[in-house]
């Protein structure tokens, strides 16, 4: 009798669980990404019939951020959310995140060593792994191979430099009908701190005064300022990117898709869009190098809210999403550079049949990626500094004025920000 009861016990527990476990899961992204997360959730639910996942999808990243902040403030956050590493410190400092290090250590599916180390660093707060990284994306140059071929310009080499980039961009900037307006731009890049950062590092500069304990922006110091000047000159001197009016009329991403901009700076995020919308041959190249090679990490992770009711069920979802099976499903959209080495180096990511053919560029650059400082007020710092960088980019103020304004206007955020 007793052995029988013992045998039944797990079944009984299983039955109890099946009634109570629901996990809410919020993501943002376009329709293709949403479809991928639906597949992920379906696969998860098939493997864990006792857990029911409610997937919420917010198309725009800005709305996503606002909704998450409001949800956390209201005390009803999603159990699992996908967050960029620049945003996590704000939630972490407010004690809203359940550290996932202990869960990861106990996992039989995944281990810390399976991930690219920089992604783990980016989500480490006060010595604990807070969220489990989904991807190890970075900024690259998307380029229109047809336009390069038509102009007889060599495609970007793996070790091309700032000068190579400017020369290429100048050649590809054209006023084909001679009416005084540029019809084809050499390049397109968002004038923001996030885009500028890797060029600062490439020039031996620093984004902040002290990366370990930042107290102010470091753009006013010489190597950093030179990088800012070079960045701004793309518009003000070389005119290889749209000016403010042209950018407002049609933004650079749209211009790239239309085939009227030859090179566009974006992370892996651009891949699904260009696969679907661009009807020309395109590929990616690494960032052109300055004094040294450097790149910037773009990474999102699955985070668990401290307020989640059934943390074990939520963890099962996070664990599954970051298992080789889960990451393979998401990598299938083209959206991610998988953070698991094994998946990143497999055909799930390096699919030779799908564009871009140089996907290896993302993996080759992992070694010299850097991260922005982890500080709870980083979003405010970034958006404020970007306003000044944009003004310099469109010629309203000089690069130096922008650096000074950005430094002074963000000082308060550095004072208020919590650090890991």
């Amino acid at each position, binding site marked *: 009798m007793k052995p029988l009861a013992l045998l039944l016990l797990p079944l009984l527990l299983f039955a109890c669980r099946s009634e109570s476990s629901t996990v809410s899961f919020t993501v943002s992204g376009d329709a293709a990404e949403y479809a991928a997360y639906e597949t992920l959730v379906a696969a998860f639910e098939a493997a864990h019939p006792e857990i029911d996942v409610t997937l919420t999808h917010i198309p725009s990243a800005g709305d996503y951020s606002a909704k998450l*902040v409001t949800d956390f403030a209201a005390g009803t956050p999603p159990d699992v959310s996908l967050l960029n590493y620049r945003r996590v410190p704000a939630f972490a400092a407010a004690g809203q995140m359940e550290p996932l290090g202990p869960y990861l250590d106990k996992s039989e599916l995944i281990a810390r060593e399976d991930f690219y180390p920089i992604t783990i660093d980016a989500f480490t707060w006060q010595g604990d792994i807070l969220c489990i990284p989904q991807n190890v994306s970075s900024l690259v140059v998307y380029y229109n191979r047809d336009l390069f071929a038509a102009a007889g310009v060599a495609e970007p080499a793996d070790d091309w430099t700032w000068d190579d980039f400017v020369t290429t961009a100048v050649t590809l900037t054209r006023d084909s009908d001679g009416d005084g307006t540029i019809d084809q731009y050499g390049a397109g890049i968002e004038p923001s701190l996030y885009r500028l950062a890797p060029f600062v590092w490439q020039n031996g500069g620093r984004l902040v005064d002290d990366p370990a304990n930042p107290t102010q922006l470091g753009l006013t110091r010489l190597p950093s300022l030179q990088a800012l000047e070079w960045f701004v000159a793309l518009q003000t001197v070389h005119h290889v990117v749209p000016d*403010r*009016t042209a950018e*407002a009329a049609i933004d650079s991403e749209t211009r790239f898709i239309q085939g009227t901009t030859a090179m566009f700076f974006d992370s892996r995020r651009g891949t699904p869009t260009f696969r679907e919308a661009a009807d020309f041959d395109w590929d990616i190249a690494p960032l052109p190098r300055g004094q040294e090679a450097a790149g910037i990490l773009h990474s999102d992770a699955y985070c668990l809210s401290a307020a989640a009711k059934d943390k074990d069920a939520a963890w099962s979802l996070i664990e599954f999403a970051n298992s080789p099976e889960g990451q393979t499903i998401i990598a299938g959209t083209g959206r991610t550079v998988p953070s698991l080495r094994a998946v990143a180096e497999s055909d799930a990511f390096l699919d030779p049949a799908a564009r871009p053919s140089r996907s290896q560029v993302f993996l080759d650059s992992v070694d010299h990626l850097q991260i922005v400082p982890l500080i709870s007020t980083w979003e405010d710092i970034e958006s404020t500094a970007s306003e000044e960088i944009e*003004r310099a980019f469109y010629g309203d103020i000089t690069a130096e004025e922008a650096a000074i304004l950005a430094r002074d206007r963000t000082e308060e955020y550095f004072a208020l920000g919590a650090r890991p």
Partner: protein
Amino acid sequence: MNDGYERRLKRLLLPYGMGIGLLFVVPAILSFALAFFRYDALSPPRFVGTLNFPLARTDSLFSLSVFNSLALVILPAPLRVFGAFLAARLARGGRLRHLLRAAVFLPAAMPASAFALAWLWILNPLYGPLNRLLMALSLSAPGWLSDAQWARPAIALALLWLVGEGFLVCLAALYDVPRDLEDAAAADGAGAGAILRYVLLPLLAPVLLLLMARDAVLLLQESFTLAWLLSGGGPYYATYTLPQFIYEAAFGRLDFGVASAALWALYVVTGLLLILVYLVARQWQVGLSEEEFLL
């Protein structure tokens, strides 16, 4: 009998009264009180006296947002009211009156986001129909929403078309004006312009004044919706309004204390605007004698 009717009327208003009380009055009082606390919604509020007021006032974006909000009232409000009046006069009679009425009212019935999308296209600096027209006329075509100088006028321009409700009020008021008065003026040799200026305008002045007061209050808050959708407050804060300051303080930085303090400022500005309209009315001596609607 009359008392019973009054009582029934009040009972009828009860659900609305409760709704207004619960959804507007109570939150308004609560947010007024929040102005005296530091509160981030994640930890309990902390009483700090009047600290939030200097914090809001010394924020350079605050004064800028007040200035922009006022500009987006003063620029379009008089034009909107006068435009509604003119449109109502045109749509009072004539064969095309139904079409005209529909056309004037339509923008007000559109969802704000659809309306904004249409204006994003109209105002596109290179490919929008407005600038194409200006260029065809050999006029200079401004960058509109991408140009710090032109962004405010661009939003005011879009706001000019949202006059549906004022238009209906003017139309109703015009129907109340006895035709005899116009006929008498016409018999005395007044043309259409003179009738408009000397007969209809004075008669409708109380209504127009009321509309003006309403528009000032409305625009102070509603200009934000359009500015947010069209330019996001930019370029470089050119269309950054007080409601946006409040919204970003509260939901961007989770600083509900400063947001509430700024909310107080919004109410003060609204009050000042109403006083201004009242003073102008008293100066012109319109709308204050017989109808006494403002007092």
